[in-house]
């Protein structure tokens, strides 16, 4: 599977990378010591709470805080009047605190700081808000219709030529592709065309948003919060509060899950504003209801996909239109959906169009491979139907058309070395592929693609006098990255894993670090860690050269030791990292390695998932009975945490496929803002989740690393839909495939005589 002649990095013999040690933050997390967002307090701390709109869409006529402020224990209230207009962060500003209008159920209209939670809750009730209720729109297709209630009367669709003259709820149109799809469809023997819908799903992290803000009268601020990107939070907050970036220090707490949902601000600017107003620290924690109503779920979508192929399985054309609503502000991930839709296939003729639409729902936030899973659900369902029509095995059909190195991607660039074919081959070779199915069971397969981001990264690696290493990274650890960073540092320096201690540093300690998103951490912070270690090695070699009184170039670093090389080889005893560190003070002072860069060379990851589902034909209940996730990791630094990413993606996909959805009532209020009725998979819902790590090295990373965090949620919904459809004998095109929907489809088929 792994062609070593083609990939020089694959020949490398790793010593530490690829092992499975205990993570550095592990003991804290199994003993309850680890401090998450809500786990910290400060002397004199106040409790902050948010008053939220009960209306989906209304003019915000007035806010009267007088009675709330009169309540003993209430120290401050902030509203729209406490935040200056900000052209640059226009939407972020309006999302954290409503201005002219409230745009969704749960939209913040005021925040209060009080001496206790009880007082704060009472104060919220005393804040009087006058609304002028407006018609609302929740569904993406409804929102696109002429005459739909308008959220923003200045929203002129971008990406359309000529520019429309009137406002609509369509923020932007995107188009990708190449070739001539009409010609391609004319060449096809079989064409399948279908409409699809997916419901909005929430990231569902178990830890609600939480922060502790402290703002002193000299204009300095400190913020502790659970976030995937404390540098980004600092930027948003400094901008919204009109303060210097350097005067706000943000510390990322341990983070209890994010999956993209903790990449922006919600409470943080409010807590800082309340702290500024009161001169006291303010802690704010969302309730679970607030998380559902007012943080960012992902988009709900509507789409149409058309694929044509010849009798021998060659796809001649692929075409799709995607409509994603991303809540009350522009920025749904439809662009990524339209880009990833056909990324698995080498197509001569392909065209995708995407519409970014606003509705009266909370502003979407990134969710694991944002936009791609919904597109893959649609396209991979059609590919499955095509396979059935053509009587070609679905894996074979994918292999016939699979994108490989040198193929032009459906979104433009030419692929470098990629591993889709290897995941398909590994799927076929897996025992699961040919295992027998029981009654009412069906098997589904789907592939998926997601990008890998690089971006701004800064890492500092300090060599301590005792030969241990302190590694400071600026990307919050959302899934074990401190372990993988430590492994890479140890590998590069030639020392034991236990000698490295990685931490996530605050915003004052390192240069800017891009958010922990885009599956970038192990790739980009890892790359910077390796470079920082290499820079440290240069200094270590220089110090040895100084002691040996030979030129720096005459020293090399081998197996954790400085060694005289070239003409001086063998002249001196090699010195270990610890030997050099011990005398660093005498040879020039502390030894550190740094790396600051915009990481490039990120390697995309493909996955193929295979799932068996059993359907109860009398109740429409679908149950996953077997699951195998195969994905290209490039190089698995800590294989257990790579497997964990595959398994987590699959499990979230099961939820999205079968039961998770935002349910709104006729008034535009969210009906299921809790874990009772927003049904994420529980332990007894799932079987063991088998994984196969394929390693096709990424040529852009010294160890071959590809980002693995997100791709795992791209194939599951299509794989499960294909399995459910096979088991129930009906093609399911809407997510979630909840029991009432599935039973209705089964009964409709029965009523039509098994046609």
């Amino acid at each position, binding site marked *: 599977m792994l062609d070593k002649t083609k990939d020089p990095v694959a020949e490398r013999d790793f010593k530490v990378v690829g092992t499975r040690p205990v993570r550095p933050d592990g003991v804290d997390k199994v003993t309850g010591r680890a401090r998450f967002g809500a786990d910290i307090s400060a002397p004199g701390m106040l409790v902050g709470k948010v008053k939220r709109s009960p209306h989906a869409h209304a003019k915000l006529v007035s806010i009267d805080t007088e009675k709330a402020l009169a309540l003993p224990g209430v120290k401050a209230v902030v509203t729209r009047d406490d935040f200056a207009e900000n052209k640059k962060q226009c939407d972020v500003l309006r999302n954290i605190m409503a201005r002219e209008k409230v745009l969704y159920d749960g939209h913040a209209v005021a925040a209060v700081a009080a001496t206790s939670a009880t007082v704060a809750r009472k104060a919220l009730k005393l804040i009087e808000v006058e609304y002028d209720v407006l018609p609302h729109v929740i569904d993406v297709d409804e929102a696109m219709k002429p005459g739909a209630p308008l959220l923003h009367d200045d929203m002129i669709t971008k990406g359309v030529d000529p520019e429309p003259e009137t406002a609509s709820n369509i923020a932007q149109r995107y188009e990708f592709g190449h070739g001539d799809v009409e010609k391609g469809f004319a060449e096809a023997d079989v064409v399948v065309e279908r409409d699809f819908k997916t419901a909005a799903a929430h990231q569902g992290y178990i830890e609600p948003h939480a922060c502790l803000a402290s703002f002193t009268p000299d204009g300095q601020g400190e913020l502790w919060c659970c976030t995937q990107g404390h540098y980004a939070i600092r930027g948003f907050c400094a901008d919204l509060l009109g303060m210097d970036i350097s005067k706000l220090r943000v510390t990322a707490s341990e983070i209890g899950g994010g999956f993209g949902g903790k990449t922006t601000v919600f409470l943080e600017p409010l807590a800082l504003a309340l702290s500024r107003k009161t001169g006291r620290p303010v802690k704010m924690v969302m309730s679970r209801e607030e998380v559902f109503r007012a943080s960012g779920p992902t988009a709900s979508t509507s789409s149409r996909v058309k694929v044509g192929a010849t009798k021998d399985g060659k796809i001649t054309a692929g075409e799709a239109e995607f409509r994603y609503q991303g809540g009350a502000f522009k920025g749904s991930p439809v662009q990524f959906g339209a880009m990833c839709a056909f990324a698995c296939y080498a197509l001569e003729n392909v065209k995708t169009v995407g519409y970014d639409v606003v509705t009266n729902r909370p502003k979407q936030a990134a969710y694991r491979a944002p936009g791609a899973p919904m597109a893959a659900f649609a396209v991979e369902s059609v590919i499955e139907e095509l396979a059935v029509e053509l009587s070609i095995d679905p894996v074979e059909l994918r292999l016939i058309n699979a994108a490989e190195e040198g193929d032009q991607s459906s979104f433009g660039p030419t692929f470098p070395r990629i591993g889709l074919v290897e995941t398909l081959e590994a799927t076929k070779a897996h025992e699961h592929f040919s295992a027998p199915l029981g009654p009412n069971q069906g098997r589904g397969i789907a592939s998926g693609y997601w990008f890998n981001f690089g971006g701004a990264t800064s890492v500092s690696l300090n060599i301590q006098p005792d030969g241990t290493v302190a590694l400071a990274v600026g990307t919050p650890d959302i899934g074990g990255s401190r372990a993988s960073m430590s492994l890479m540092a140890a590998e590069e320096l030639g020392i034991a894993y236990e000698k490295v201690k990685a931490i996530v540093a605050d915003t004052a300690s390192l240069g800017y670090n891009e958010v922990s998103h885009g599956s970038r951490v192990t790739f980009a912070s890892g790359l910077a860690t390796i470079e920082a270690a290499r820079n440290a090695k240069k200094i270590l070699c220089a110090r040895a050269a100084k002691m040996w009184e030979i030129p720096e170039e005459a020293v090399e670093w081998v197996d954790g030791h400085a060694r005289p090389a070239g003409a001086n080889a063998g002249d001196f005893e090699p010195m270990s990292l610890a030997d050099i560190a011990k005398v660093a003070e005498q040879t020039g002072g502390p030894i550190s390695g740094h790396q600051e860069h915009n990481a490039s060379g990120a390697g995309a990851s493909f996955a193929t998932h295979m799932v068996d589902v059993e359907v109860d034909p009398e*109740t429409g209940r679908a149950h996953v009975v077997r699951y195998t996730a195969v994905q290209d990791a490039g190089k698995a630094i800590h294989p257990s945490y790579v497997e964990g990413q595959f398994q987590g993606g699959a499990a979230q996909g099961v939820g999205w496929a*079968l*039961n998770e959805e935002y349910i709104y009532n006729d008034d535009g209020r969210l009906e299921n803002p809790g874990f*009772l009725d927003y*049904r994420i998979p529980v332990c007894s819902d799932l079987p063991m989740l088998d994984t196969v790590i394929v390693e096709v090295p990424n040529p852009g990373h010294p160890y071959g690393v590809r980002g693995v965090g997100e791709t795992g949620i791209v194939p599951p919904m299509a794989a499960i839909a294909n399995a459910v459809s096979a088991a129930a004998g009906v093609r399911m095109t809407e997510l979630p495939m909840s029991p009432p929907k599935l039973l209705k489809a089964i009964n409709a088929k029965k009523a039509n005589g098994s046609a």
Partner: protein
Amino acid sequence: MQYEAPQTLDAAVALLADARGAARVLAGGTDLLVQLRSGAIEPDLVVDIKRIDELKKITAEDGGYRIGAAVSGAELGEHEGVRALWPGVVEATELIGSTQVQGRATMAGNLCNASPAADSVPAMVAADATARIVGPDGVRDTSVRDVATGPGQTSLGRGEIVVSIFLPARPARSGDAYLRFIPRTEMDIAVVGAAVSVSLDDEGTCVAARVSLGAVAARVLLVDEGARVLIGTKLDDDALQALAAAASAACSPINDKRGTIEFRTDVAGVLARRAAQTAFERAKG
């Protein structure tokens, strides 16, 4: 809010009867605390009944069992006697919430919360269970069917507490079962619940039956027609089909976030049929 944990029933009744504002009884608290935390209720008084010894007990009585109002689902599940006599009631109670919720939730609380979707209630109705109620005017026994009068509404008067549930004796060759439909395998509220209790003669013919449905009407239903079509049969396919039809016909559900009218009506029949089969197998022993 005032919290009281009296040690006698008299004290509890007096506290509730004398309360000036809204008063609530706290048994397991798995519904009450959720309502309290969400601000859905703002009681002036909460009376915790878990310190009253007699309400913590399961006692054998007239061949049946009296289950105190403060007995948790976990404690009920550990009682071999009740398990053997009314396995359907025990399994229904054990379906309420998670292991953690089982550590607290009670049958009496499930009954008094008056949700049409309460899991233990259809099983209690099928068992023809009786609730013992103590109040300022003394003690009264009433059918569990008559406790909940609508969603969140009960027939309890001011100061009255359900102190125990009585599960009666039953003839040999009897069995009961409860099934519910939920989208996941655990942690959901029933979309439909169905309980069936049957007694057989020596030939294996059904001589008595009770069929009850949850989450398909404003109150838990007792489906007399469902029982009628089972009696005199050996629960053959025709009888089971007739039961399913009777169950579906008895439904008057609503569309909500958990299910549709159509779905609930359909699945009520399916579950009644399946629960009857299990009850029948148990009765045969």
